[in-house]
């Protein structure tokens, strides 16, 4: 446990120091999104990596959080800080209620059901034009503020988002190292065995689903207030798949892996931008190679690769 805490502190210090190197660069803006994506990937990883339950509808929860915050603060003039927990609770409740029937399903059927859920949420957002502004989106969402201090620049948003992201990571690390975390992993390996050992598998699965949705909704609220604009296209099926890719590429069942996955999938397109029209091909190729050669994700694959390379150097180094 001490080791985990040390790791977390090290990671926090690292993330809080990054702006010193990149201050003023547009990458600060990209890193804000890395933070949001990290929250989402960690949330999905709790469900997929630990409890072994797939979800293709997480973009929906993300979108619900974003739109609840956007509509309540912009159209109805509520205080953003009040709306955020409210949105999280509402989305959590929805997830809790739908979770019972949906999480009875397994494998492909669960994937289908969560996919359906995501699509339904997307359609609702897209079609209730009077409230959501429909496909052309909702603009003029206020920035978050404490007194007269407004979170309206990249650097301020960076610290805002990363404070939240680090809190989510700490929560996830603690959770997975607790009795609940072990119960989740037991469900992952064998639900029957877990139930025999006295784990209330059905309830626990729904609870973790709801928690995952709550974190996603929180990320959504923060997204809405940093972007100050939301449109349904950001919360479609594609984004659910992207989140899934982040979790898998980063490493299933590893919290820091989720960060790596989120960082890679968000930053890689930026670095490939200079390759012009070929960026998509290179991007796809990189992802394919990673899945082929690092099936355990970045968090396990990279140390292995380093070991191999260092071993190689030791052998050929003197030649």
């Amino acid at each position, binding site marked *: 446990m001490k080791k985990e805490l040390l790791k977390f502190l090290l990671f926090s210090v690292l993330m809080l120091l990054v702006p010193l190197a990149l201050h003023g660069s547009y990458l600060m803006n990209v890193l804000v*999104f890395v933070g949001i994506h990290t929250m989402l990937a960690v949330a999905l990883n709790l469900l997929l990596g630990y409890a072994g339950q797939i979800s293709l509808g997480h973009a929906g929860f993300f979108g619900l959080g974003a739109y609840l915050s956007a509509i309540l603060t912009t159209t109805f003039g509520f205080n953003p800080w009040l709306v955020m927990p409210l949105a999280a609770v509402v989305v959590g409740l929805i997830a809790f209620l739908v979770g019972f029937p949906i999480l009875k399903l397994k494998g492909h059927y669960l994937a289908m059901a969560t996919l359906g859920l995501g699509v339904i949420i997307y359609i609702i957002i*897209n079609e209730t034009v009077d409230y959501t502004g429909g496909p*052309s989106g909702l603009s003029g969402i206020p920035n978050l503020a404490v007194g007269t201090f407004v979170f*309206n620049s990249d650097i301020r948003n960076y610290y805002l988002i990363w404070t939240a992201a680090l809190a989510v990571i700490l929560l996830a690390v603690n959770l997975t190292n607790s009795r609940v975390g072990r119960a989740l992993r037991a469900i992952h390996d064998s639900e029957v065995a877990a139930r025999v050992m006295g784990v209330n598998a059905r309830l626990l699965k729904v609870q973790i689903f709801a928690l995952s949705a709550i974190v996603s909704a929180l990320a959504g609220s923060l997204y809405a207030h940093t*972007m100050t*604009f939301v449109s349904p*296209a950001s919360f479609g099926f594609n984004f659910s798949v992207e989140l899934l890719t982040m979790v898998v590429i980063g490493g299933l069942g590893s919290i820091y892996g989720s960060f790596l996955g989120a960082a890679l999938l968000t930053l890689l397109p930026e670095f490939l931008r200079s390759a012009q029209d070929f960026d998509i091909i290179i991007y796809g190729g990189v992802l394919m190679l990673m899945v082929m050669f690092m099936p355990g994700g970045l968090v396990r694959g990279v140390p292995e690769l380093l070991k191999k390379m260092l071993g190689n150097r030791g052998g050929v180094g003197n030649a």
Partner: protein
Amino acid sequence: MHFRAIVFFIASVILLINSPVFAAAPIKIGALFAVTGPAAFLGEPERNTAQMVVEEINKAGGVKGHKIELIVYDTTGDATKAVQLANKLIKNDKVVAIIGPSTTGETMAVIPVVEKEQIPLISCSAGSKITEPVKKWVFKTAQNDALAVGRIFDQLRKQKLTKVAILTVSDGFGSSGREQLKAQAAKYGITIVFDDTYGPRDTDMTAQLTKIRNSPAQVIICWGTNPGPAVIAKNARQLGVKTPLYMSHGVSSKKFIDLAGDSAEGIRLPSGKVLVADLLPASDNQRKSLLVFIKDYQRQFKAEGDHFGGHAWDAVMLLKNAIEHGGDSPASIRDQLEKTTKFHGIGGTFTYSAHDHAGLGQDAFVLVEVRNKDWAIVK
């Protein structure tokens, strides 16, 4: 294991691609287009055109002796990406102005960024709310939906038709059109007797059309971009619907006629003049610009220049004029843009002012009809 060799190779390729092109203090202009993704039909001709025009300007000696450097990024039609890339253009590439984005959603997302950083933006998307209310740093070249709606309603009033059925696509383009159709109907004494939507990827609209057939509608107005409207045209023909069909300017390209085939005959739509440039009278002010654009585009890309590309053509030329009249600082470009009067472009004749950053009048649109698989102007 040749890892190091591979890593070295990749690194050198990236360095090679990244190496800057040396030129004497070029003026940097950024562009955000949805070159890939669902809005690629907008982004691709826009990028092609922008690059073509900039190349021609540079070949002719640039603007006031400076070459223009155009930096194009692909937003894939995603608002989040558009915001990131706008930041990149401003903070990394230090551009003096930005052209695009291609869709209304992306433009609305980018507006807070350019307003804060004080960089002029010339959007290539149509949504009315981009320039209403007027934002200090934001202009646009695409014709407002309001003008297209007005053009259709004008014709209906002439023919004394008052009962209208509207069928709009459930995306940004369609919902903006629907809003305008409903808002302007009363002004022209028109009642909307039927109002329904369809999904952008729907492949059968007989359900909606059957309902319309049973309604008292005298005219059907469909608001969408390819391929939906072509499906509606075909379905209407199959069902034997005799009610006249109007489309939006979203399908004003040859592609629509190709997709709808025989069913397109007799369909009317408001369109930018680029579609019928050769049919325009010689007295038309835009004729010269239009013919140049069409000829250049044909030569360069072996394809028909459409009005989407035209939005980018207008944006680049407006910027060029602004820089010619003033300096190349963002503030000066903005001020000069606002002073633009009677610029005869592809989308229409632009006159910007402090109260109007859209710059076009109803004359930007002509009403065209499909006759013998080609366009004809409705008098």
